[in-house]
């Protein structure tokens, strides 16, 4: 019994509802939102590891008061071991992932409260709701609970796009919801097939049934379920063919919103990817499919990023492209490879949030995202330019920063698994990523300022700069001491092989 695990999901939902309740009381909302957002990552750090059974429904085998008088019909079968209620599992890997997610949420909320003029309204509500649902997806050991929070997360993301007020955001929001309403029911159909075959929605129990021959592990319905869950996974994380809509979604949100949205995609990709590996790693085709989809995501995302003229769209495509690295780590299927993929996920979430907020300052100063109309921003604020440049270095994998460590691990893992081609493609695409970033950086910051570019006189809020510095510090710390992250990820990765 561990109540703090449930609090990690309940607290953001409760604070989201409460903030909505306090409409128009700007000062109170500001303080309350920052305090709750600050508590969330701390909570992830202090909560003890363990399992939380919702409503106290432990398996019958552990429940001595009910368990002892039951007939042999139940005690001699697996019913005695199965989990009757929703179960949340919290271990070192979940701790790190939720800590990073909540930290990004905290910095995004912190930035947004100072950049938007009116803190009251639905924006903070949606951010908290999204954070809660992604935390639940990471924690949940119950596949239907995962589906429910998958839908809530999709609605929260739509809300964040609608609340941004950028031109054409409603169109993108409608496209995203329509596609989500195809992917969501089909994911549910996949879950239903698993439920129909094994009679269970608890992932541990489904794995037990598959591994111990209670059901035929190669039955067509299982393969169909695997395909459908993979499809839902592609929607949640924005892998092809959803890469166009996902990058449009990032570009139609405000910079802090986009930072949080890409963290949502990264972590739901990790969570559902881990579940796919846990359940179906005995089917060899699963890993091949994950590697194939990831390769497609990398190549399409990064090549599309180069040819964009809108820098937010470019960042969106880069974020999709970087997802491919995580997928390759997961798809290699070795403990080292999965650790590398999860580490890359942590790094990517941080770096892309850093980049979105960093380039967001350009938007804040000039109100345009078109690289053809921008230039000369270096002289407006050289220190900010330096921070953005460092973020770009981090993304490309320049040594003292964190992505270097994870990309190096990924390349080593691909060599160890006997697939050096993947390593070569990863190096190639890293170089192209860096080139893409430098192209944008050059046109925005270093090129002489176009005559018709108006730079607004509003000062960049201090909270934005603080957030960027915090991101930079994390990048450096993880770059110098990668063991901090990999040690906590290793147990999970070793359990998946």
């Amino acid at each position: 019994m561990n109540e703090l695990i449930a609090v990690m999901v309940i607290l953001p939902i409760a604070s989201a509802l409460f903030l909505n309740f306090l409409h128009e009381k700007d000062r109170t909302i500001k303080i309350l939102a920052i305090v709750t957002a600050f508590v969330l990552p701390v909570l992830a750090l202090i909560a003890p590891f363990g399992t939380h059974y919702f409503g106290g429904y432990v398996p019958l085998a552990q429940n001595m008061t009910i368990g002892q008088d039951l007939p042999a019909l139940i005690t001699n079968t697996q019913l005695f071991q199965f989990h009757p209620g929703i179960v949340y599992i919290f271990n070192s890997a979940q701790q790190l992932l939720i800590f990073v997610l909540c930290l990004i949420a905290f910095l995004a909320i912190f930035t947004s409260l100072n950049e938007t003029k009116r803190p009251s309204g639905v924006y903070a509500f949606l951010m908290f709701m999204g954070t809660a649902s992604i935390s639940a997806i990471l924690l949940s050991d119950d596949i239907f609970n995962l589906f429910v929070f998958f839908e809530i997360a999709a609605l929260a993301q739509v809300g964040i796009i609608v609340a941004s007020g950028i031109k054409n955001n409603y169109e993108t929001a409608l496209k995203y919801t329509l596609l989500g309403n195809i992917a969501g029911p089909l994911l549910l159909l996949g879950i239903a097939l698993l439920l129909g075959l094994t009679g269970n929605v608890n992932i541990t129990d489904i794995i037990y049934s598959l591994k111990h021959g209670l059901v035929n592990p190669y039955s067509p319905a299982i393969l169909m379920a695997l395909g459908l869950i993979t499809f839902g996974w592609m929607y949640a994380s924005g892998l092809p063919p959803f890469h166009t809509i996902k990058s449009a979604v990032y570009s139609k949100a405000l910079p802090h919103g986009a930072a949080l949205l890409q963290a949502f995609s990264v972590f739901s990709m990790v969570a559902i990817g881990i579940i796919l590996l846990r359940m179906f790693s005995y089917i060899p085709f699963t890993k091949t499919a994950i590697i194939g989809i990831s390769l497609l995501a990398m190549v399409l995302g990064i090549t599309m990023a180069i040819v964009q003229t809108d820098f937010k769209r470019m960042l969106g495509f880069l974020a999709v492209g970087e997802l491919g690295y995580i997928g390759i780590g997961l798809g290699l299927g070795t403990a080292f490879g999965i650790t590398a993929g999860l580490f890359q996920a942590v790094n990517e979430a941080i770096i892309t949030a850093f980049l979105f907020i960093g380039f967001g300052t350009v938007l804040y100063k000039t109100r345009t995202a078109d690289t053809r109309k921008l230039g000369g921003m270096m002289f407006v604020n050289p220190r900010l330019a330096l921070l953005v440049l460092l973020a770009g270095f981090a993304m490309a994998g320049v040594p003292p920063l964190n992505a270097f460590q994870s990309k190096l691990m990924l390349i080593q893992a691909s060599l160890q698994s006997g697939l050096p081609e993947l390593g070569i493609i990863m190096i190639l695409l890293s170089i192209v990523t860096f080139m893409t970033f430098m192209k944008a950086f050059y046109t925005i910051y270093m090129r002489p300022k176009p005559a018709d570019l108006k730079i607004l006189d509003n000062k960049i809020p201090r909270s934005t700069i603080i957030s960027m510095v915090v991101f930079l510090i994390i990048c450096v710390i993880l770059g110098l001491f990668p063991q901090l992250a990999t040690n906590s990820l290793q147990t999970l990765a070793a359990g998946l092989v």
Partner: protein
Amino acid sequence: MVIDSQLMSFFTAGSLIVIGIFAALFLDNLIKKIIGLAFLADGVNLFIITMGYKAGGIVYIFMPNMTISNFAQNASYPLPFALVLTSIVIGASTLAVMLGLVIVLNKRHGSLSASKILGDKGE
């Protein structure tokens, strides 16, 4: 193969899913697309309910005059039904969101055609 009502119910669910995907893919009107998606969700719900059905069984409500073993052998499987209740509510709420977006977009563009509103100009 014996054609029983459970199998036919699976086919009904399958055809609703196919009709839904067809509507979302080929009909141009946004309201019709959303109607199609509602049918898709209905089809999946029907599929799940059909899975819990037991031919010749009884409703999964424990009445005072039943014995436990009789109930355990004859009752339909209640877990899918609990899931569908949640899924129906989720479907209705996402439907409301989509229709709200459609109303706003119609006010802006004066049209309901997907190729006109959701065309290629989002950059």
